[in-house]
């Protein structure tokens, strides 16, 4: 032992304890669990049980407007509200709903109707706000779900619930469930990608948290991978100088062998996840650099998104990048978080401003629905 680094006496760590104390049977059970999980991978490395039916939609592109767009100024026509404008909120409507920290000291809770005009669009006659003419132009092609319900009364619990199903933290996000259930169509990109943009509506308001795209208790290779804003969606793609692709491949082979030996000893399925992540990183080194290049899109296409599309990291740019760079390459779930909707005042102007972004334009929707492979393609 001479010459070896001297360390203070190490307490037995958790892995070693399970390995030694559990005895042969338990260790074998753990080891076979690790092997069973990896045998069900679909080649991309993700553990995939597989669907039990033939789905009709292939991918999801989720445009999440964080902060909360005012529905009564955009999508929900409430003509009755005009009659109650300025009057106290009736108990028959409020039904004892609890108040937020911000509002509970108010002495009055008046009703306020929208100052924007609503008009019918399309053959369906759906009433939409005057600031959404482009969405109005495709009103017959999209589905409005009017049955949403929540018990959340503030931002963080509400977006936690929208993304994970409960107001309490810790559950997997939607994208993770989809990735877990359906696997990935792409070997080169993660199955769940998150893009975040900051709007002008209320800079700095209402943060987002990485738990909104976390895998919770599912294997962590299903977590959302956040791509950065701007020209470099992923950092440190380039290998250090002196290491070429084959050299990196050789190092990763050695790394995978060492990790697999460890996994056989301790049976931790997260080791398999780590191996998968390193392999995905290796493939992303090749696949990511040309993702943000939109130079082959026509001018008219780009104009359809608004002028902001040429600036990397804006919502407009993400709306193009999501379907084009990601969904068309097989990413299963793409979530665009757009911050800046938390309007507490100045609603008409703010809504018009927000509505100028691609959420209200026609072309992005078509691209998005085609990229999501909605309902027209066979599985």
């Amino acid at each position, binding site marked *: 032992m001479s*010459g*070896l*680094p001297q*360390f203070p006496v*190490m307490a037995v*760590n*958790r*892995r070693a304890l399970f390995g030694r104390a559990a005895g042969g049977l338990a260790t074998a059970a753990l080891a076979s669990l690790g092997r069973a999980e990896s045998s069900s991978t679909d080649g991309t490395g993700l553990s995939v049980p597989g669907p039990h039916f033939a789905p009709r939609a292939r991918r999801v592109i989720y445009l999440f407007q964080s902060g909360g767009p005012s529905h009564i100024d955009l999508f929900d026509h409430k003509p009755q509200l005009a009659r109650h404008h300025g009057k106290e909120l009736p108990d028959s409507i409020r039904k004892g709903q609890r108040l937020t920290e911000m509002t509970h000291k108010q002495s009055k809770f008046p009703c306020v109707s929208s100052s924007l005009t609503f008009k019918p669009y399309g053959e369906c006659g759906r009433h939409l706000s005057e600031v959404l003419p482009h969405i109005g132009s495709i009103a017959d092609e999209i589905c409005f779900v009017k049955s949403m319900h929540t018990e959340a009364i503030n931002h963080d619990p509400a977006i936690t619930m929208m993304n994970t199903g409960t107001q309490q933290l810790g559950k997997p996000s939607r994208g993770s469930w989809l990735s877990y259930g359906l696997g990935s169509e792409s070997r080169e990109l993660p199955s769940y990608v998150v893009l975040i943009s900051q709007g002008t509506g209320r800079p700095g308001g209402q943060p987002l948290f990485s738990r909104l795209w976390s895998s919770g208790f599912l294997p962590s290779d299903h977590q959302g991978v956040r791509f950065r804003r701007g020209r470099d969606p*992923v*950092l*440190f*793609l*380039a*290998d*250090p*100088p*002196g*290491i*070429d692709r084959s*050299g*990196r491949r*050789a*190092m990763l*082979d*050695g*790394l995978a*062998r*060492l*990790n697999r*030996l*460890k*996994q056989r000893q301790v049976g*931790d399925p*997260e*080791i398999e996840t*780590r*191996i998968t*992540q*390193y392999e*995905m*990183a290796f493939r*992303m*080194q090749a696949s990511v650099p040309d993702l943000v290049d939109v130079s082959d899109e026509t001018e008219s296409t780009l104009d359809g998104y608004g002028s902001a599309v040429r600036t990397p990291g804006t919502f407009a740019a993400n709306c193009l990048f999501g379907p084009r760079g990601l969904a068309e390459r097989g990413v299963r779930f793409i979530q665009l978080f757009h911050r800046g909707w938390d309007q507490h005042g100045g609603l008409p102007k703010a809504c018009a401003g927000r509505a100028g972004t691609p959420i209200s334009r026609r072309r992005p929707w078509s691209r998005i629905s085609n990229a999501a492979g909605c309902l027209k393609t066979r599985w």
Partner: protein
Amino acid sequence: MALVLMNDPTFVEAARGLAVRTMLREGRDDVARVEWLFVAVTARRPGPQELETKGPVDRRSANPFSGRPQAARELLSGGPSPLDKRVDVVEQAAWTALASVLLNTDEAITRE
């Protein structure tokens, strides 16, 4: 995170530092050096299979940097600390790659 640990110049420099420390120990016995490096990273001795699975970056097989001193020097140029001239550049690059692999193992990264 994989990309950070493998490609961030800070980590490459750390691997280089570890490589130099490894090379300055144990005379010229490569097996002992590999053992020392393994203990330094994981606080346990390597098993026989682990000693063998160093693969192409194993010091005992062909050094991937032999005949490529320029590539070796490039790898060793990352980070602000100066190149350590006490040890051979080509060997140092191979040990740096090996140290980088060990620093990226799940065992090295995971805190239990």
